[in-house]
Structure formats: structure tokens, C-alpha cells
């Protein structure tokens, strides 16, 4: 056993990278859920983003175009969900599950000719001097841009929900679609936009996997990341800043587990791996035990079907 081999600095730096795909997907899903829609198809949208981004980056040679197409790919898939749940009033749980199934299948078909190809390299932020500062350098100033993009997005969503009129409308729709409708807000339109935003974010998260973290394309490569993103939203009790905390917790446990193993510590891997989920449940319980707080956070209309009768 050699715990000194684990560098806390590198641990934090690598957990930030590991957390980025799930952070992107989770912040998108948070907006979707805040609008009162539960989309369980995150996994499907992520993997669609992973392949669309990968294919576009390989074809154009530009990772930036790749990320753009990943967002479009994720959003395109989410439109199916939006149309089914908002216009055809289908059940959100079942539709989300079907979306995951469809996304996994479609992405694997699209990706058949991209197996074993190397994508263009996404540039890292390498600031001379600043990146070399001990501790702070590796943690704050030496990542590829997705890490910063994800953090910016989290801040943006926080600001949007808290300080803008649009955020207020979104929350109102998620609290009570009937009341929002009565006030003249376009419930369906707001929700569709939120769903597409969630799809785009999940797509970016998928591309962060296929273009940066892994980087390559293989079938089913998201391997459950989309479900973790769903867990993080709950863990965060629908607060953007806590989404960051949740993503770093889930990413951190994954990285820490590997670090402990490499250092020769015998750990029961399975029990460590289940801990973030158990923590999420505990957070949920604590949060819901305090009902006044719950009302403030959890969108009351989550998962309910809205149909304006007139």
C-alpha cells in the first residue's frame, strides 16, 4: 500500500475531467425538470451527441464543429420526446425509456463506420506560467475547454433561473402548468424549448466523452452516464450549484476508487461504487423531510401531463 502515490492535486484535476460529461448532461436535465418534464432519455440523447459530435469532428477535422453537431444531435433526438409528450400527450416515463432504447440503437447504426478512428485532438488550455503554478495550475488552468464550458453553463443556468424573466416563467410552468397557462404563458412552447436545451446539453456531454475524455467512438460507450446525470439532478435538489457538487461527487468516487486500487489498497469496489447512489437517497430523504424546503425546490408538476382544455 502506498497512499503517497496519490497526488491530491491530480486527483482533483482528473475528477473535474471525469465529471464534465455527466455535469453537462445533468445541468440540461435540471432545466428540463424545472419546467415540469421528466425525461428519462438522457442516456439516449448523450450517446446520440457522442456519435454526431464524433462523426462531425472526424469529417471536418474540427472539434468545435463536432461539439456544435453534438448539441444539434442531442437536441434533434429530444424533439421526438418533445413532440410525443407535449403534442401526443404520451407518458413521460415510458417515452423517455423508449428514447434511450432508440438512441442507443440509432447511434450504433450511425457509428458503424467510425469504430477505431481517432478524432482530432481538442486543444487544452495551456497558459504559460499560470498553468505551471503548483496545485492551482493543474486544477484550474490546464483543462480542455469542455471543463470550462460546463462550468460556464452551470453558472449561466443558475443566473437564468434566478434572475431572468425567462427563468421565472420556466419555474412557474414547472410548478403549476395550469396556473402558468391561466396567466397566459405558452406552457407547451416553454417545455419544448427546455426539452431541446436538455437534449443539446446531453449531446454536449456525450461529445465530451467521445471527443475528450475517452476519446474514441464505440457502441454503447456512455455505459450508464445518462442515468448518473439523472441521479445528480435529484442529489442536487434541482439547484444548479449543487449539480456541480453532485457531478464532482460521482466523478470523484469513480476516480478515487481507481486511485486507491492503483495504490494497492484493497477496497470492496462494489460498495464504494454504490455509495453515491445511497448518498443521493439520503439527501432526498433529508430534503423531503423538511417539507418547506422541498416545495421551494422540486418542481411540483414534474412528470405530469399538461393538456389545455381550452
Amino acid at each position, binding site marked *: 500500500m502506498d497512499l503517497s502515490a496519490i497526488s491530491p492535486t491530480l486527483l482533483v484535476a482528473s475528477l473535474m475531467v471525469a465529471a464534465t460529461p455527466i455535469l453537462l448532461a445533468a445541468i440540461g436535465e435540471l432545466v428540463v425538470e424545472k419546467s415540469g418534464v421528466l425525461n428519462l432519455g438522457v442516456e439516449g440523447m448523450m450517446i446520440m451527441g457522442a456519435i454526431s459530435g464524433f462523426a462531425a469532428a472526424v469529417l471536418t477535422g474540427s472539434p468545435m464543429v463536432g461539439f456544435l453537431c453534438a448539441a444539434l444531435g442531442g437536441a434533434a433526438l429530444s424533439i421526438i420526446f418533445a413532440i410525443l409528450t407535449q403534442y401526443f*400527450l404520451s407518458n413521460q*416515463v415510458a*417515452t423517455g425509456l423508449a428514447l434511450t432504447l432508440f438512441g442507443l*440503437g440509432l447511434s*450504433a447504426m450511425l457509428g458503424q463506420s467510425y469504430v477505431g478512428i481517432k478524432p482530432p485532438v481538442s486543444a487544452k488550455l495551456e497558459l504559460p506560467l499560470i498553468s505551471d503554478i503548483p496545485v492551482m495550475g493543474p486544477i484550474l488552468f490546464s483543462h480542455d475547454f469542455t471543463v470550462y464550458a460546463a462550468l460556464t453553463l452551470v453558472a449561466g443556468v443558475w443566473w437564468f433561473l434566478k434572475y431572468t424573466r425567462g427563468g421565472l416563467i420556466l419555474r412557474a410552468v414547472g410548478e403549476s402548468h395550469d396556473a402558468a397557462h391561466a396567466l397566459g404563458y405558452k406552457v407547451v412552447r416553454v417545455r419544448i424549448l427546455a426539452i431541446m436545451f436538455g437534449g443539446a446539453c446531453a449531446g454536449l456531454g456525450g461529445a465530451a466523452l467521445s471527443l475528450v475524455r475517452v476519446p474514441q467512438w464505440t457502441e454503447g460507450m456512455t455505459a450508464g452516464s445518462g442515468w448518473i446525470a439523472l441521479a445528480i439532478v435529484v442529489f442536487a435538489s434541482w439547484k444548479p450549484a449543487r449539480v456541480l457538487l453532485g457531478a464532482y461527487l460521482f466523478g470523484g468516487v469513480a476516480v478515487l476508487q481507481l486511485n486507491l486500487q492503483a495504490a494497492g489498497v484493497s477496497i470492496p469496489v462494489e460498495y464504494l461504487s*454504490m455509495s453515491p447512489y445511497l448518498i443521493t*437517497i439520503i439527501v432526498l430523504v433529508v430534503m423531503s423531510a423538511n417539507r418547506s424546503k422541498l416545495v421551494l425546490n*422540486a418542481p411540483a408538476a414534474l412528470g405530469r401531463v399538461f*393538456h389545455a382544455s381550452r
Partner: protein
Amino acid sequence: MLRLEKRPNPSKMWGYLAPVLAVIATMIGGGVMFALLGKDPFEAIRTIFYDPLFSEFAWYYRPQLLIKGAPLILIAIGLSMGFRAGIWNIGAEGQYIIGAICGAGAALAVYPFDSALIFPVMILCGAIGGFAWAMIPAILKTKFGTNEILVSLMLVYVAEQLLASMSLGLMKNPEGFGFPGSRNLQQYASAHNAELWAGSGIHLGVVFALIAVIFSYIMLARHQMGFHIRLTGESPKAAKFAGVNPNKLVIYCLGFSGALAGLAGMFEVAGPSGQISIDFNVGYGFTAIIVAFLGRLNPFGIMLAGLLMALTYIGGEIAQSSLGLPSAAIQAFQGMLLFFILALDMLTNFKIKLVNAEVRT
């Protein structure tokens, strides 16, 4: 301008017609997809839908439909009770795993002791395991108001990790050359959930699925609990006035679905699957949610939906081996089928009306 208008009562006609239309639409959409992949669309569709039922080897495939469909139906029946009452257990996959672990654990604990009592005890353990796992979200919901969708979902991942731990540790076959996975229960006569008639596909899990269908039909139609479930689903307020205890309902619905999912897991591990292994669960718990909705939460509808789903799995495999279709195409095809069914389902509850744009307020 098209407009939706809610029907006062769900349409009977569309109730039958919508799924048929959805299957036809999927055949067209899927046919286009298969044609794009360079396969003969007619042959592909025939292979998926017709061959398992009527081809030369249908005598083998038909029983397989039962084997594949039974766990889906058993789980979906349990889930449908809660779904009707607005209680969302989406963690059946976890309850299925725990049921299998408990059922197999009971047998492995006494291996190689032979007794006619072992199998009934396994059934009991499987049901209790699934029930107990479902009680976690149930109690948290009744005590603290915690959202059961999320807790039950989280517990799926916990159960998967437990399964991995069991396959690699406690339940690992001591004669298995160090490979993960338990002893094969098919080779342990007292614990084997064998086919009741060889080659029929009918094992005890199939029988239980059928009983569950009939039981839940009678309960929903005749029993007070069924009435409470339906009432709560239609109008929670009315149910409150009628004296329905919502906490009791939560415990009942989650417990019932958990026990059935646990049973499904136990029958699977003792029969068709045979052993606890890391990849034991293949998504029945999630697919069953879709099956429940495809069957419109109606017991007999669920039975048909479960068989339809099994048909696409088995037909899909046949299409892979005989036509060389990639498995991804089959997955996308299934997804498409679900989309169409979910979309067209609307026609049973809503009328589409053509309205003049000017009338719009």
C-alpha cells in the same frame, strides 16, 4: 388548425385500432430503415413478426415467446397497479435482481441438500426480497414524502453493485475456476425451475404470470382495493373523500410490484438463466415499464403487450442470424414501435378536431 379535445370516455374502437395502426406504421418506418441498410424490407418484417409464430421452426419459437414474455408480464402487472394510482415504481429492475439474489441464495445456502421444500422456500425468498427492496422507497415516501420514482431508480444501481459483489464473492461457484458467477441451479434438481412439460416453455414463472394477470383483473374489477386504486388514479381528491388511505395504498402498490418483480427474478435465475452472474439482469425491469404502458395498464392488454415485446426480441434475433441485420437496427426498430404506440395511444383519449383559426381565442 388541428386541435385536441378530450373524450368524456376513452374510445373503445380506438383502443383496439391504435395499437394495430402503430404496428403498421412501425412496419413502414422500420421497412424504410431496413431498406436503407440494404436489406429486403419485406423479408425483414416477415422475419420479425411472422417467422417466430408460423415458420418451419415455430414449434420452438412459440414456447420461447412464453419464456421471454413471462418475466415482462409478471413485472408489468405489478407495476400497472401503482401506475394506475399514480405511484411510480421505476426500480423494478432492482427488485428483480434482489428477488433473484434472495431466491438463489436460499438454494445455494443449503446446496447440495435435496428436498421438495427448497423450491417453495426459494419462491418465498424471491418474493420477500423484491418486496423488501420495494419497501425502501415505500416507507421513505410514507414517512418523509420522498419521491418514489427517484429512490426506486437509485436502488437499481445499488442492486446492480450488490449483484456484482455476489457474483464475484459470496455466491461465486467454488468449482468455477475462479470465474465470476454462482453454481448453475439448472444442475441442482431441488432448486431448478424446470419446464413443467419438456419443450413447452411453460415453467412455473409462466404460470405465475398468468395467475397475476387474472388476479389483478379480478382485483381491479371487483375488489375494494382495486376500486381505491382506480379512484386514486382518476381523482386523488375524490379518493380522499372516499376514505382511501394514501399511505396504505403506497405500501400496497409498491409492495405488490416489488414482490412480483422479485418473483420474476427468482423464476429466471432458477430456470432459464440458471445462475447469478454480473450480467444476470438484461433490462426486464425497465422494459416492463414500457410493456405496462403498451398494455394500457390493463391486465389482458399487458399480457398481449408482453408477448408482442417478446416477439420483437425473438424475431429480431432470427433476423440477425438469417438476414445479417445488426442488433442496433433491431434496437432502433423496437424504439420506433414504442414511439408509434405511445403517440397513437392519444387517439383513445382525445379527438382530433379541425378548428377554424379565427375561432381560436
